[in-house]
């Protein structure tokens, strides 16, 4: 059996081996890798840095895979030399491996610009899993990070570090970000988005030196200005690893020169991936590598196939939460037609370059669903004369499957896993798949970077007879947008009333689902400075009482922490008698409920109670339940009453996505059940635990520990961060326990108590503003918003 030796255990080499295995078993395969990990998805390193994926989740080929296919795998060995005459490679550990065919997939290394002091401690690169781990170890909340390089890699590093709580500045040599993928306008958009997320961007800065003695303490630019930093990440690009090939006497320019069949200048040595140069082009993206691997595998198997013709450079990615797609040549030169669409507020930017009636390049920002259509036009050099009027927006297809139906079966849908349309369609039909989850499990398509999810869904829709749409994220059927999108729109378009949103983005009328949700959103986004539309509120929030099954209402006055007084109780008793309240009930929340009240009696009852609203009717802050703590309890170790009353004071009168119940207990005996509340403070000897996401309703869930702090004030502060974070990020009618479970407590911690100082300050500021603009709803008893708000209308005449 012929010996195939692969130098490099990265995505390109291993993908090629996967292809080789599909042909008849012809080779005895050895893979030599200098990293100590099995093949993983390098594209997802940014997700690891951002804490979205673990190391294990990005593994593409497990050790079992190598074993199953009888592949000899040697990790942690760097190949030092090739002897093309003896046909051997030798490692830096002295091992010599003979080959019949040699495949070089040596990849690339970080490009280190000529900057003084790059060897100092605290200077990192971001290229492989070990780099990522090192960065994760270094990233601390509040640490100042300088990322040198505003290209794709730099922005991904910046995003990851920002999520980890670092105070990040991106320094870029050029005057626009990601100039290889997007044009100036696109770059400006990305810059604005990043700054909005709290990442600082410095353009046109040439870094001259890393400051500090042995340890990085900042950077100095050519213009003499300096920027302090706790650590520096160099992400200025990549450089093909060609030294090995050059020493072996192979033809090398920028990369290892290969022909259309991936052969180098030595007949038995091939090369694929980022280390190669084909027709003057070096590629750093995944799709070309896979294509090269396929051509080479067929060639090695002895098949005559069409050679590799080069790949139109294309990138589809998500930068700082923004979808970006870029392909081809998008420079505006004479003779090119430029077609452009821009809606800054929506965050959508599209630009097409058409040359000789054919698409030459495309940039999509914010909305990339059409990318495969443009990719096809680019690759097939489609004549666009007939489509000229519909270049930016697709003609309405006869059915949604039409567009995907046009794709050839050989077209790669999932670039990360190299899954073609044909494979997906056959798998759907053979196994009778009906959901995206099943498709992911069977083919692994869309489990990588996820950019092909839409395409996979379209294929399912078109092919699967019983396609089941996954739960839609859209708010309701009136508005085809998710709540995340709507919040962005409300902010950017400065919409201040529910009706405006409905008129512009919805059906104009809205429904009982979206109207209260939008009402909440308005209040939350504008911190109470919105145009309140009571017709969009549920009846409880129009009359500030809870409607009962017979159309009467219940009245619950605010009794903070459950602590009341004889005077209050006397007034409550008087009111109950005077208005013939049908039932007086102690609630489960340590409050008193007066049930069976007529709407028209509400203002008088409130006035006579002389107590503020307990908000027991709204999707808002309900109450804080407390135990007596150190005041009376012989076991109490913390002041539960004072802390609970203060907690209630700080948040009362505010709306939340769903009702919000809290509890404060003075010792871990937990008498007021704080660990099954949305927010709970659990007093311990010398400290407080802040717990969130508990439930004792339809579902019972023990709250997750957010943080343990020393003082009650710190506990209140931590609770405030979580409170506002929940207000801003949960979907309407999503309780904290669903919210925390959906996001994971780790992420919640990262974005609240471990968030960057500026982010925390933002949360606190908006909470303070909201609080300042809120008031006791029962004040409307004296000053109704509308003369008939609580009035029972009497007809102007009687019928005889």
């Amino acid at each position, binding site marked *: 059996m012929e010996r195939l030796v692969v130098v490099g255990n990265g995505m390109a080499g291993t993908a090629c081996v996967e292809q080789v295995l599909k042909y008849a078993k012809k080779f005895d395969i050895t893979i030599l890798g200098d990293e100590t990990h099995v093949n993983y998805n390098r594209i997802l390193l940014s997700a690891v840095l951002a804490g979205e994926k673990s190391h294990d989740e990005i593994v593409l080929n497990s050790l079992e895979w190598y074993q199953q296919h009888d592949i000899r795998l040697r990790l942690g060995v760097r190949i030092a030399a090739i002897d093309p005459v003896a046909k051997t490679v030798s490692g830096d550990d002295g091992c010599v491996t003979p080959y019949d065919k040699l495949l070089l997939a040596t990849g690339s290394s970080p490009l280190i610009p000529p900057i003084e002091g790059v060897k100092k401690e605290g200077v990192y690169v971001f290229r492989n899993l070990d780099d990522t781990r090192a960065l994760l170890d270094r990233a601390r909340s509040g640490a100042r990070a300088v990322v040198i390089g505003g290209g794709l890699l730099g922005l991904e590093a910046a995003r990851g570090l920002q999520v980890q709580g670092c105070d990040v500045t991106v320094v870029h040599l050029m005057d626009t970000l990601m100039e290889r993928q997007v044009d100036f306008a696109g770059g400006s958009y990305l810059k604005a988005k990043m700054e909005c997320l709290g990442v600082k961007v410095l353009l046109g800065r040439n870094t001259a030196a890393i400051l500090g003695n042995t340890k990085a303490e900042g950077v100095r630019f050519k213009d003499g200005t300096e920027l302090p930093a706790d650590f520096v990440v160099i992400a200025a690009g990549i450089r093909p690893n060609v030294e090995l090939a050059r020493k072996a006497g192979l033809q090398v320019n920028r990369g290892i020169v290969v022909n259309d069949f991936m052969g180098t200048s030595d007949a038995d040595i091939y090369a694929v991936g980022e280390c190669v140069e084909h027709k003057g082009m070096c590629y750093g993206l995944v799709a070309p590598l896979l294509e090269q691997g396929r051509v080479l595998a067929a060639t090695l198997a002895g098949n005559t196939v069409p050679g590799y013709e080069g790949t139109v450079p294309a990138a589809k990615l998500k930068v700082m939460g923004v979808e970006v797609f870029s392909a081809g040549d998008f420079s505006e030169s004479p003779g090119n037609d430029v077609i452009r669409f821009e809606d800054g507020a929506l965050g959508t930017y599209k630009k097409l370059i058409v040359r000789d009636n054919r698409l030459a390049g495309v940039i999509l920002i914010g909305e990339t669903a059409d990318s495969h259509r443009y990719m096809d036009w680019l690759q097939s050099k489609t004549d666009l004369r007939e489509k000229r009027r519909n270049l930016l927006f697709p003609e309405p297809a006869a059915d949604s499957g039409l567009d995907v139906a046009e794709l050839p079966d050989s077209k790669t849908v999932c670039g990360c896993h190299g899954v073609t349309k044909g494979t997906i369609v056959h798998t759907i039909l053979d196994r009778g798949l009906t959901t995206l989850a099943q498709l992911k499990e069977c083919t692994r398509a869309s489990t990588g970077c996820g950019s092909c999810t839409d395409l996979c869904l379209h294929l399912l829709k078109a092919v699967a007879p019983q396609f089941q749409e996954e739960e839609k994220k859209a708010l309701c059927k*009136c508005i085809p947008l998710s709540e995340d999108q709507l919040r962005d729109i409300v902010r950017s378009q400065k919409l201040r009333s529910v009706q405006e949103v409905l008129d512009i983005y919805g*059906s*104009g*009328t*809205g*429904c*009982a689902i979206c*109207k*209260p949700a939008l009402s909440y959103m308005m209040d939350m986004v504008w911190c109470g400075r919105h145009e309140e*539309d*009571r*017709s*969009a*509120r*549920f*009846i409880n929030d*129009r009359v500030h009482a809870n*409607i009962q*099954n*017979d*159309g*009467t209402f219940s009245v619950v006055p605010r009794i903070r922490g459950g602590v009341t007084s004889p005077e209050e109780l006397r007034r409550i008793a008087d009111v109950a008698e005077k*208005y*013939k*309240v*049908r*039932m007086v009930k102690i609630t489960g929340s340590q409050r008193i409920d007066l*049930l*069976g009240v*007529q709407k*028209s009696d509400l203002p008088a009852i409130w006035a006579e109670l002389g107590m503020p609203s307990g908000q027991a009717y709204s999707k808002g802050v309900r109450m804080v339940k407390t135990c007596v703590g150190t005041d009376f309890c012989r076991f109490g170790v913390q002041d539960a009453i004072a802390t609970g009353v203060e907690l209630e004071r700080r948040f009362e009168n505010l709306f939340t996505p769903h009702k919000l119940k809290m509890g404060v207990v003075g010792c871990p005996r937990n008498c007021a059940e704080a660990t099954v509340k949305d927010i709970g403070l659990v007093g311990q000897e010398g400290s407080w635990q802040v717990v969130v996401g508990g439930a004792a309703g339809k579902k019972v869930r023990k709250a997750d520990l957010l943080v343990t702090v020393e003082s009650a004030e710190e506990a209140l502060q931590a609770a405030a961060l979580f409170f506002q974070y929940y207000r801003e990020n949960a979907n309407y009618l999503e309780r904290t326990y669903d919210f925390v479970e959906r996001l994971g407590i780790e992420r919640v911690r990262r974005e609240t108590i471990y968030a960057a100082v500026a982010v925390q300050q933002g949360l606190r500021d908006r909470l303070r503003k909201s609080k300042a603009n809120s008031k006791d709803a029962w004040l409307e008893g004296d000053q109704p918003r*509308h*003369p*008939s708000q609580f*009035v*029972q*209308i*009497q*007809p*102007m*005449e*009687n*019928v*005889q």
Partner: protein
Amino acid sequence: MSDGEKCWVRVTPCESIPLREGKAVEVGGRRIAVFNLGDSFLAVDNRCPHRGGPLSDGIVSGSTVVCPLHAWAFDLNSGAVVNHPESQACLATFPVRIEKGIVWVQIPAEEPETVCQPASYERDRPVRWVLRKTPSPANTPLITPTP
């Protein structure tokens, strides 16, 4: 006043019903919900045929109202149930006209089949009655479809 067997009744000035909201009013022994839809006013029986919820307290969307108790939705023009196709129930609707800023509603002259309870119905009861279950409205078919 009389118009055959129906009569027009002056109910309330337009401005006492806020935009896109409803108000309950008792006319000739019937409890009616009158809605201000901006470009028109519509009136229906105020009692949800499902469990008797006060429709005047519902959220209005377009010309639909959603009962505040269990979210049954009704078309205010026809009185038809929108989201429970299994139900044959239909609200009585009442013609409305606006004259000089006053909402007029036309109601049948005869007594309604179900006399609505006075607003102070519950209040006049002794407190010890509170645990008594109210009769299930399901036992009392009450709505006649509009002709």
